[in-house]
């Protein structure tokens, strides 16, 4: 299981702030997890397909497509940040 968190525009568009997800065996990195979520279609495909509109973190560190994802990790998807 991994914990997946969604923030800001993604949280609203997907209608969820977090979920527990059984990691498909084929998923070994962030790109794989994102592909699995896009495969749900609908808002998931729309929000997560364009990677330049989405950032991600694994265990609270900024992550890239090839960052490994393992059981027990906390993965977060969110738009580019707009702080300060």
């Amino acid at each position, binding site marked *: 299981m991994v914990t997946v968190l969604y923030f*800001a525009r993604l949280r609203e568009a997907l209608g969820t702030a977090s979920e527990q997800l059984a990691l498909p065996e084929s998923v070994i990195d962030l790109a794989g997890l994102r592909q699995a979520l896009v495969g749900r279609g609908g808002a998931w495909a729309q929000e997560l397909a364009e990677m330049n509109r989405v950032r991600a973190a694994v265990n609270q560190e900024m992550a890239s497509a090839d960052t490994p994802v393992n059981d027990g990790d906390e993965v977060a998807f*969110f738009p*580019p*940040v*707009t*702080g*300060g």
Partner: protein
Amino acid sequence: MTVRIQTEDFDVGAETAAMRKDNPSIGAIASFVGVVRDMNEGDAVSEMTLEHYPRMTERSIEQIIGQARARWNVIDALVVHRVGVLKPTDQIVLVVIASAHRGDAFAACEFVMDYLKTQAPFWKKERTRQGSRWVDARGADDVAAERWQLKGR
């Protein structure tokens, strides 16, 4: 070195006074306060809501302060960032850097602000007459952050 994420307002005078009293080697304190403006991209803004990623936000700001300390003389540093609902003229963010000399204090303060704008996980939603909208990341902020990788001390 202190990082606080809070809904409450802050007082830059009280924060710098506390820093000052603790250390008589401090000669310079540079501060920055970000304020909610009543206009953004041509539209009147009546309210904004700030969201963050608890724990990751604090951790990323601590890392930014660590980078500033590695680069400049920093005696003390404070970052306070508000979340929740804010209105025009409300304070959003405070960065205070204390140093022996003013050049270090200014540079470290601006460095931390530039990184806060581009890397710390905060998201802003604005309410305008047309409704609510998430603010898009601005290219100008990325440019501001990038110049630190090119510029020497």
